Structures are given as structure tokens and as C-alpha cells.
């Protein structure tokens, strides 16, 4: 599974939506995620990829694509180390 597929699966599970409706352009509002859903998705992704996503960074995400790009960057850095 790619990073994007894994993040999509986690977000879909936590927000209880069909993963197929989540595109890179989807906002958290589009998939009706509340603030607790968002925090829990961040925590689950952090644990899956063993990375850290501070709130200061997460607040900059405009949509699912931004979230995925950030995780790809962090997970990529980790592999290089």
C-alpha cells in the first residue's frame, strides 16, 4: 500500500466514511470530520508511520492531499535516515 492509500484507510476508518469518496482535494469538512476525528486521525497516522505531526503543522493542511504530502515527506526523511 502507498502512503496515500494507508492515510486514506486510516482517515476513512476514523471518520466512518467510504475511502473511495476521499480524494486529494477533499477537505476535513467535506468528509464531515470533527476536531476529535482530526486529532485521532493525526495520532493514528503518527503511530503507523512512526512520525510526529505537531498541531502547528497540521493546522496548515487545506485538504487531504496536503496531509498526505506532509506524511510522505516525513516518512521519506525517516527512510533516508
Amino acid at each position, binding site marked *: 500500500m502507498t502512503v496515500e492509500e494507508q492515510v486514506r484507510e486510516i482517515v476513512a476508518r476514523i471518520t466512518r466514511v467510504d475511502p473511495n469518496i476521499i480524494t486529494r482535494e477533499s477537505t476535513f469538512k467535506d468528509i464531515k470530520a470533527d*476536531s*476529535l476525528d482530526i486529532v485521532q486521525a493525526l495520532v493514528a497516522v503518527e503511530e503507523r508511520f512512526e512520525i510526529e505531526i505537531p*498541531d502547528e503543522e497540521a493546522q496548515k493542511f487545506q485538504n487531504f492531499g496536503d496531509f498526505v504530502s506532509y506524511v510522505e515527506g516525513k516518512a521519506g526523511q525517516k527512510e533516508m535516515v
Partner: protein
Amino acid sequence: MTVPLEGKLALVTGGGRDIGKAIALKLASQGADIVVNFFRHRDAAQQTAKEIETLGVKAELVRANVGDPAKIQEMFDMIGSKFGHLDIFINNAASGVGRPIMDLDTKAWEWTMDINARALLLCTQRAAKLMDGRGGKVVSISSLGSRFVLPNYTIVGVSKAALEALTRYLAIELAPQDICVNAVAASAVETDALKFYFKEGLVKDSHQITPAGRMVLPEDIANVVAFLCSEEAFMIRGQTIVIDGGTSVGPFTHVEMENNEEV
């Protein structure tokens, strides 16, 4: 300058910001080395650690979600292996979901209760072992929402009521080990969390209805917590000290009466 806590080690959960930061700095100013626990805000925690170190004591950062039992164990494993003891545990980290009762679900309930109430139990179980043979202090941060109703505050209020009840039970069971367990309950404190939950209305109202004439500040909480961590407070056990500038005992003092003449 008095350094009553010199040589002591304190863990402050949620110690990077707001009330936790004020407490961490207060205890550091009294000579304690501080373990600053944080979860979502590393930058703030790093800044707090720097400020602690400028006071001439050690600061150690540890990231952990105190709602996760495994992370609590990892945090205390680190403290145990690095320091081998603990003198003060400040149970400050809190979270919550502000919603009307009809919109609450089990996910919101569990998230809030796990962080605000269960963490006190799980952390104190580990802290007490690190305090064994030397005594210790445990102080939790509660809120007036444990006993008074605030809008959309149900789960947090209930979690704080559980926290205060647990404080009483811990105080009695841990008394033979010379561990003093107490809590403080504040009214609205001027913090980022408050602005997040209530926007401006509550802040404005609180200025007007607080008999003491201003809102409670994080430093007001830190001062009382520091007292509860001192030997002078040794005989205070299982209590929740209210810090609200008189709001809860004089809730109507801001109301202008139409006829103040004697009957």
C-alpha cells in the same frame, strides 16, 4: 532566594503551555528539576524547557498522549531509567469535546475520560512507585465544571468530577506512603484553551462577574499548586481547592438590585 524544592524532580503533564507551563516554571523557580510532558505542541514545550533551564534547573521533554496507557508506561519507564525517582507529579494535561449532550457519542466520552480522569489513576500508580520511601506530592488540575454546569461542557465536567473523586481515594490509600494527593479547581482561566472553547463571550463575562475583579491567570493556579507541593501543606489531603476569585460563592454579586433599601 529560597529554593524549597531544590533537588526534587517534578513531572508536569501538559507542561508546555498555559497552566502547565506556569506550574512548571513556578516549581522550577523553587529549585525543582522538571520533566515536561507534551503531546501535540512540541515547539511550545521546547520553549518552556528553555525557560526552565534559564532558572538554573534541568528540563527534560517527554512526548506522550496520557490517554494511551502504553504511552504512560513508556513515559514512566523513561523517568525511572533516567532519574530513578520522582517527587512531584502534576496531573495537568486535559482535553475535551465541547458539544451539546444530544451530540455526544462514545468516542468523545472515552477520549475525554481517558485523558482527564483515567490518566490520573494510571500515572499515579507509576508515580507512587517512584516516590516510594521518599514521600511525594500529586496535584491535579480540575475545573468548576465538575460541580457547576457550563454550556457544552458535559463530558469535561463529568471527567473532572471523576478526577476529584479519584483524588480523594488516592489521598487515603497513598497516605501511609507520605504521598499527599490534592487537586485545584479553577473557574475560567485566561488561556488559549479557553479561547478555543468559548470564544470571547465567556472571557468578557468572567471579568464582570468575578468578585476579585479579574480573571484567574495561570500564575494564580501555579501559586496554589506550589503551596500544595510544599511541606507546609502536608496535612491537606484529598482536597480540591477552588481558585476562582470568589465567583462560586458570590455568583450574583454583579447583579444590580433595583431596591437596596432596608425593608
